[in-house]
């Protein structure tokens, strides 16, 4: 009855072309994992930083999992969105990061990418916003066919996760 607590926050994001950002996040775990409590997906507020490059969200994450196996260790997938001055939202980046498997506090940085459309898309994006998005967000963490995408790197999302493992040692998993 190994248990895993993931407690932490999505601190914020840096390095994106625009500063007014928000983030949609979700945790994906394998079939052996069972969520006992907590929300496994969510969305942060839009932060419009007045100073500095970083958009701060400080969005809490609090999950409690139990598992019967190590396969499919939870991973966090993120979508960073930009809200422009007209209130329209536009995708700015996808990224995913594995939840650390060692207990303790971890400061993580998740780099993000964004699909790059054809030149028409890019032109349209420049003038009217919008842009290509993945049809199914599973691709963020499964990545079977990702090599066929044209992507462009975006900024990084900073996270702070505290991982608490419980009873993993009973099953021979040393932490």
């Amino acid at each position: 009855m190994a248990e895993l607590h993931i407690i932490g926050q999505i601190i914020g994001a840096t390095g994106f072309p625009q500063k007014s950002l928000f983030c949609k996040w979700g945790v994906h775990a394998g079939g052996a994992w069972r969520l006992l409590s907590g929300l496994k997906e969510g969305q942060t507020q839009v932060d419009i930083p007045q100073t500095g490059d970083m958009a701060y969200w400080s969005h809490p994450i609090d999950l409690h999992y139990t598992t019967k196996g190590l396969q499919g260790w939870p991973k966090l997938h993120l979508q960073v969105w930009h809200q422009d001055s007209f209130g329209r939202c536009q995708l700015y980046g996808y990224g995913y990061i594995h939840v650390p498997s060692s207990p303790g506090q971890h400061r993580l940085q998740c780099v993000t990418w964004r699909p790059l459309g054809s030149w028409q898309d890019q032109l349209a994006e420049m003038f009217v916003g919008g842009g290509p998005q993945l049809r199914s967000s599973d691709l963020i963490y499964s990545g079977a066919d990702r090599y066929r995408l044209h992507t462009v790197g975006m900024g990084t999302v900073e996270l702070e996760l505290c991982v608490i493992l419980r009873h993993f040692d009973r099953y021979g998993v040393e932490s």
Partner: protein
Amino acid sequence: MTEKLRAAKSKAASLLEQESIIEPASRLQSLRDRDTLTRFDRDTDPDLQADEDSSFAARLKFRDAARRAAKDKRAEAGLPTAEEAYNFFTFNFDPEPQQQRRKKRQSRRREAELEREHEGEEESEARDEDAPLVRDEEEDLFIIDQSAQDFLEVRRAEYIGYSRRLQRERETLFVPSMRPVPASSKLPENVRPRYLEEEGLYVGERPHVCLTNQNILENRILKQAEGRKWFGDDGCIIALPDPIKESSSRPPLFHLEDELDPALQAVYRKALKTKHVNLYIAGMGDPQADYQLDVDVSGLIFSHHPLFSREHVLAARLAQMYDQHLTRQHKNLTRLLTDKVTQKCASKTKLPALSQVTQQRIAEYKHEVRHTRQLRDVEQEKDRALLKSIIRVWKELKALRDFQRFTNTPFKLFIRREKVDGEQDEQEFENDIMAEVSELEAEAEEDYQRKMSEYRRQHEEWKSWKRKQKALKKKQKKKRQQEEEEEDEEREEELGEEPEKPEPPEKPDTGDLEEQVREKAARIRRKPGEPVLIPELTVSGPITPNEQCPRAEFARREDVAKRALFIKVLYNDKEVSRTDSRTLNMDFRVHFGQIFNLKIVNWPESIKLQVFESVGSSTSQLTEVCVPVPESSVLTGSAPFEEMEFSSNQRVTFNHEGVGSGVPFSFEADGTNTQTLLTSGKLSCCVSWAVGEDDVPLAPPSSQPGGGMYSGHRQMDAIACIGASGLNDMKKLGKWAAESRLDPNDPNNASIMQLLSVVSSGDVAVPEYFRLEQLQEEFNFLSDEELQRSRRFRLLRLRSQEVPEFRHFKCVPSMEREVSEKVFQDYEKRLKEGEIIDTKEHIDAHRALVAKYLQRVRESVINRFLIAKHHFILSDVVSEDEVPSIGVLGWNLFKLAEPKRPLKPCRKERKKVTAQNLSDGDIKLLVNIVRGYDIPIRRPYASKPPASAKSGRSFTEPFTAPVSSQTPQQGSEWPFGQVTPLVRPFVEVSFQRSVLQTSTAEGPNPCWNEEIVLPFSAPNGDYSSTSLQSVRDEVFINIFDELLYDVVEDERERGNTIHTRIERHWLGSIKIPFSTIYLQSRIDGTFKVSTPPVLLGYSKERSLGSEGGYDAVRSLSEGTFLSLFITIEPQLVPGDTVREKFDSQEGERLLIASEVFEKEASGRFPKRPCLTTVIDINGKTVFVTRFIRPLNPPQELLDAFPNSPQETAEVVARYVSLVPSLPDSVSFAGVCDLWSTCDQFLTLLAGDEEEHAVLLCNYFLSMGKRAWLIIGIAIPEGPTAYVLTYEQNRYLIWNPSTGQHYGQYDTFCPLQTIGCLISSDNVWFNIQPYAAPVRMSFDVSKPNLWKAFFSRAFPDPGLSSVQPEGLVYRHTDRAVAVELQDRIEKVLREKIMEWRPRHPTRWNRYCISTLRQFLPKLELSGGREVAEEHRLELQSLLGEYRISGFPLHLPFSEIRPIIEAVHSTGVHKVEAPNVEFALAVYVHPYPGNVLSVWVYIASLVSAH
């Protein structure tokens, strides 16, 4: 002169240019730069200065000259005088500066005339400076002469000639030539350049470099020390392959506009066999993986060659046959089969012929023996034939040698005879024959037996047919006359065809058999006693030397000697290497013995060996042999040589002895018996994978699909039979082994046999399922069941699922053992109860079913709501104070200036508290009871004056003073002169098990003005708005009359002590649900107290006209009233109704219109409720007018008062009010009202005001009244629905839940605000200035008072009703009602006894029976006062008792509310020692299962 000038000009210009190069910035043509210019002129150009002063310059130059002269003087002896020198130099140099100066002047003049003056000044200055120098110079002349040798040296300008310079440069510098470097110099001596590309190795394309550059580089490098190391084996500079790719590695993806994401699009490919998919061996990327194929070409033997002589042909044939013989002998099939036959015979005889199985086995054995024997016979025959033909060919060969008189081949055949023991041999032979014969006999016998039995069966059939025919014929004769026609048909049918008479089989002839066997044996076998012939071929025979041969033969031999052979090795159709060419020997054998190591990159597809024959310089390909690619297990060293047969269909003819190829030739002299032979032979080679240094096979992994590339020696056994994939399936393999009857003794099958034995014993279970996450199961920590069993996890999960029982679980223990199983008991019980209907709580099954259905609807709605609850809007998350607008601000400022009116206090808005920061004890319920009106007064017991007198007296003493103050007004009415208070009421408020009461006041119109504070605790400590909304507690406000009885026993003590017993008599009550208070945040007003129709001992007669002011108002209504103010402290934010949009079947336009209408209405009059769309029980939005439709009330009700429509209406209203009320905002926790249609409502028998109102309205409509639905606000219900009718020129407002009706101008009408009216075809919103019914007009035709939804702009689209056509009422069974009645009575009695644990409860049977008779009358009268008569009746019966009691009237839903109602009256609290109780219950059935319950409860105290 002009020419000179021009030249000077140009010179000056060039000079200027030079200057500008030196300092270009100073040349800018601006005033600012002028200064710079002049300074420059002065400082940096000494020439110019010299121009200014020629003498100075001349002197300088002279100084130089003097120096040089001094030097010369040293070199030569002769010295010119100073004068001479001076003259010489001045003469020479003077005119030049003069000219220059003029030129300068001229050029300058044009450029800068302004500068002139300035410059002139400077020049003069310069001259001033120079002046002393000039003077000095004349003195210095001598000094110069002396010091010239000391300081100065005059030298000629150094110049080296061009050619000399080149020469010198050539010594130091090296210029590489551009000519190509000869290859020899680039490589070490005696090394031929090696081109890797030609060797079949991949060499990348070199980057393009200009040839001259390359040559220069090569030349330069070669000059360096160790220059050669830069060159590769091929003599070129070592270079990496060109890194530049021709095309972009990321070619642009073109996709259509709608297919944005290429990653998600599948590319359809046909199911084609891809040829080049596995061209490269997997794992070639890593350096360890180099694979090597060793091709060993050992040699070649021609079985026929065009240069064969006739003898050669025969010899080859002989050799071939001999080879065959040898292999046959080696295999020794005959012996093997013979052994097998004998073995099987032996085992057959061993078997006991008992059981069915062994019988079958024997049959199988027989079959096998026969089969094996046949095989053996064939083999024997072959052996014998081979031996014969060997001998024949040898004879022919010998004949040929004799004929041509020379020998070409060294073959010699010896035939060895091996003697055998004749007797034994014969014995064996005989035995064998006998065995075979006997077997054949047995077989024949068996066959005969089978045939016999067959014959018998057929014979039997034939006989029976015969018999039948005979019988039939007899019958036919009898019946022929009667039914000829039918008979005919029948006969034809029955007889059918006549079966043949079977012939008995012949007996087999055994003697014949033996002869046959013997004949066969003689044909194919060695005769007994005959010696065994063993041929032996040797190559030791001499060959006739060339000289002794005839010409033709000699030519042939010459030709043979000319021939040479070599073999090319082709790998994947690419030539990788070739053998050395070897000459063809006389014996037509070529030995190569070469091994080629092929380092391979590509997956091997084919390995070919091409045999080439060269005659002189011309080569021709003889043939091509394909060598199979070896299995990866075939390694060098262990791989056997394979002989590949080849042949060629070339036609070759010769004019010498060579027989040629593809042309007919003959051995016979006469040219008959021609035969045609084609070039053929055997190539001996071996292809295998090399073994690396550390014994690692350099073979690619065998998992690579071979693509059907099986090596030649691989036997196509099991794999061919069941397919390669079948090898993994042990079952299949086993099946195949069983079917094909593998010989377990065959060493070839040993491995399979072993495998099968392992499998059958070990029983490897192959799972018959597909698993998505492989290896998940294997690595699981624990099973699912274990995980499920964990109580803690279950608790956590249920909590996060917000299951009601666990929703408010704050802390979950961290240890498993701390979670007890009890936690889940309630939950599991509830789950189980889902199916079981509790028949105790619900009286009849129908109601239980309805309750269950309701529960299910509730759950689904709640689930839906829970989902909707998680959708937050901004105001849910962010609490933001609204910025006050200018208008509000201005108004507030204006208010500051207002005069203060301390005597008119107004309520301040309290701050609202959000639910999050609340805990137990924070919330209090404030109930302010202001005053009461028309409380029933006690009725004196007129008939029994002593009793009343006594009681009266007992009151007087302690309360004389206060009572006397009131009595002046009231006392006069009482018949008795005594000061008896009319009533001493107090109010008791009970809420959530806490009970508080006011002080006791006096009189029927008391004024308490007391505030009662009741604590409130939310269920499970959850103070969220949803939880608060679902609080189902009610505030009970009961009015009691307090009676004091003197219980002093001893008259003497009366002076000193007071012993009184307080009795309380319930007068009436008000119920206000908490949810109403919560949603309205405060309740303020005068409410009608629901009083029982009969109050024994009290009268409702008004104290006539005493309090003048109120009379006018009160006279309009009846009953008791109570002024209340109820609120919650602190004020809570009521939850919002659900924002979720429900799906709808209404038109889009209608929905938008209704939204606009509602928005507009709430904008103008935010306090007036407006309703256009409602949600039906299925959760769909429905336009509200669809609910209004005339529906028939039960006929019984209409028949009750056929003459009085008013009465009928009241009866109908009463009927509607009897349907139990269930506020759905409580059950559907803040979800919003769910409207059910009338039939649903009557089926469920539960609903809130809307359903009641709709039903009542529909009834009224069907009764021909003009009726509307009122959506308004009433107290205490809050937003609710009433019914408005228009009859006899006045409007009546009906409260559907109570059945009461009020006139429009009734002050005590609970309806406070009217928002809108709804009829079946329109909705009108109230836009009048006032919303109270008293002050408004109900004329909906006036558009300035009522705003209609459907107007001319948006006409009614003709909405159909959702209501049914008509209602069907079931007649309620009287018996059911009686049964229910009994049960309620029983339950109530038990309860009352339970509530009085310390006192005995006695029942007065006499009173009970009286009450029972009375209750039906009450029902009949519709609850109207029949009290007087009844009271008198009771009084006469129970004269000696003091009775207090009342009937309670309730609609029936469940028993629990009845019990509560009884309990709240507090009748059971009477503690007089001699009290007796009376309880009677009456249930009156109405159509449609509507039940009216009457409970009459009374306490009787003996007057004695």
